[in-house]
């Protein structure tokens, strides 16, 4: 039995996320002693043969009218059909918005165990067991599949990237999209020039300590020099200083970046729940008693309005010299 991986694209373009999924799948296939096969859906601008650099030798493309607009049931049904045709019993997805939406239907059609919020490579092959985050990163749990097939959705940035040489053979295939009524997409509105959460490798986040939405300029400048996405705490999104889509925490988005810089955020337990999986946490707060310092790797006690511009300058200088 092989491993199938969904190589997602956005308006025809692949992202780091896509290749992390490819690598996750080829490492899982290695563990299971089999091969990993990629699937793309929709028209492509980028070259899918790049999957070869992440251990995938074969990529199948689904194209045409059925696949221009996302629909959870339709994409789930099509992926299941490809998995069956390829004899795949393990299907890998990176936890993007669309992947999370289609994974449940894929699991139903495949009669597979659905393992989501997975934070590392599979722990064992038999029984097929993964480590998943639970209670909004306040805990972890080993979860095993009791069905013979399984769909794995991992959290972006869980394993990172390692490139090697190679090119995959890309060919077209076809699959039906099932008989459920479809949604019809009217308008797609993506913010240009911003790094979306949760895939951002670095995130700069602001809280109530920034005093008002007009003060986000310095935070955005820091994010720009760091090549980071921007985020905020719940009160900031509740007060409409920043859009909901930037709210990270227990009831917002859970993220796992390499670097999380928290500015003027006290570190309530609900906020920590969404960000504590970050590899390195920097906390800037004028209150030395702020609970966030206990969860931080690096802490700076000081006024954000002085510290943040200095940090931005220091990074600029560093980048100029390196």
């Amino acid at each position, binding site marked *: 039995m092989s491993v199938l991986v969904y190589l997602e694209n956005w308006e025809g373009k692949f992202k780091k996320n896509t290749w992390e999924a490819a690598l996750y799948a080829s490492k899982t296939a290695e563990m299971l002693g089999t091969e990993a096969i990629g699937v793309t859906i929709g028209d492509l601008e980028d070259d899918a043969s790049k999957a070869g650099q992440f251990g995938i030798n074969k990529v199948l493309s689904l194209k045409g009218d059925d696949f221009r607009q996302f629909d959870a049931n339709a994409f789930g049904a099509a992926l299941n059909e490809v998995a069956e045709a390829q004899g795949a019993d393990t299907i890998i997805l990176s936890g993007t918005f669309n992947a999370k939406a289609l994974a449940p239907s894929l699991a139903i059609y495949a009669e597979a165990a659905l393992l989501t919020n997975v934070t590392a490579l599979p722990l064992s092959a038999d029984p097929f067991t993964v480590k998943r985050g639970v*209670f909004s990163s306040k805990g972890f749990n080993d979860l095993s599949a009791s069905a013979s097939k399984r769909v794995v959705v991992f959290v972006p940035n869980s394993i990172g990237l390692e490139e090697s040489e190679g090119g995959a053979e890309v060919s077209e295939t076809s699959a039906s999209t099932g008989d459920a009524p479809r*949604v019809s997409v009217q308008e797609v509105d*993506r913010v240009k020039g911003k790094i979306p959460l949760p895939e951002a490798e670095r995130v700069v986040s602001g809280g109530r300590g920034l005093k008002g939405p007009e003060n986000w300029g310095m935070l955005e400048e820091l994010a720009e020099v760091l090549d980071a996405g921007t985020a905020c705490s719940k009160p900031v999104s509740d007060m409409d200083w920043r859009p909901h889509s930037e709210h990270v925490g227990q*009831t917002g988005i859970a993220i796992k970046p390499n670097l999380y810089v928290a500015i003027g955020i006290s570190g309530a337990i609900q906020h920590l729940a969404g960000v504590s999986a970050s590899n390195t946490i920097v906390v800037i707060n004028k209150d030395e008693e702020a609970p966030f310092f206990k969860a931080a790797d690096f802490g700076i006690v000081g006024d954000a309005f002085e510290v943040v511009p200095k940090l931005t300058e220091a990074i600029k200088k560093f980048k100029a010299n390196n």
Partner: protein
Amino acid sequence: MKVLVCISHVPDTTSKINFTNNNTEFDKNGVQFVINPYDEFGLTRAVWLKEKQGASVTVLNVGTAETEPTLRKALAIGADEAIRVDAEPTDAFFVAQQIAAVAKEGEYDLIIAGRESIDYNGGQVGGMVAALLKWPFINACVGMEIEGDKASFTREIDGGKEKLSAPLPFVIGGQKGLVEESDLRIPNMRGIMQARKKPLAVKEAVDAEAKTKVGDFAKPEPKGAVTMVDADNMEELVKLLHEKAKVI
């Protein structure tokens, strides 16, 4: 219009999480349970459908008797009736089968689930119910308007939003945006009194087998001690981030 709102019974967001019985179970000791925050936005949106468009609202939980106070709270917020499927919610597949069975029997026009529950964070149930019923599924739904037999939605996508439409019946995975935080209702005395008289039906579970098996739990590794850096020495921080943390 008949609306079915799925309610998860979860630990309050401020709960300290501990595990018991040799780390094989969540320790419920001293934990306050609430309506899953994602479901609460959907419930409030459903109550608006009742008030503005004459819908009837049924809340549903798959769980043991201990979840009834949570269902009563949903009734106090404004739902008309409650159903509890009497079973231990072993996994998302099992729960989705129960919800799909209730939906078929009750001939609902739409199902509102939360994007995920804050206990096991699976984000699976809504999409599974939709696939079982062959109804359209709109996940991470932040806006929903219903007119006749059609509905329009806004959902979150990577780095933005998407506007879409679908015919009834459908399933959404809802979240904040369906209504705002300030729209959420705290049950008042009148609501609580009325809720006591509203019907809460207990149903037997349909046959379904879980497809996953829960193993050991663990708490995150504790962080090492924080390294404090002087506010006037950001060069030092940059050096640490580069040399020690290797993140820039």
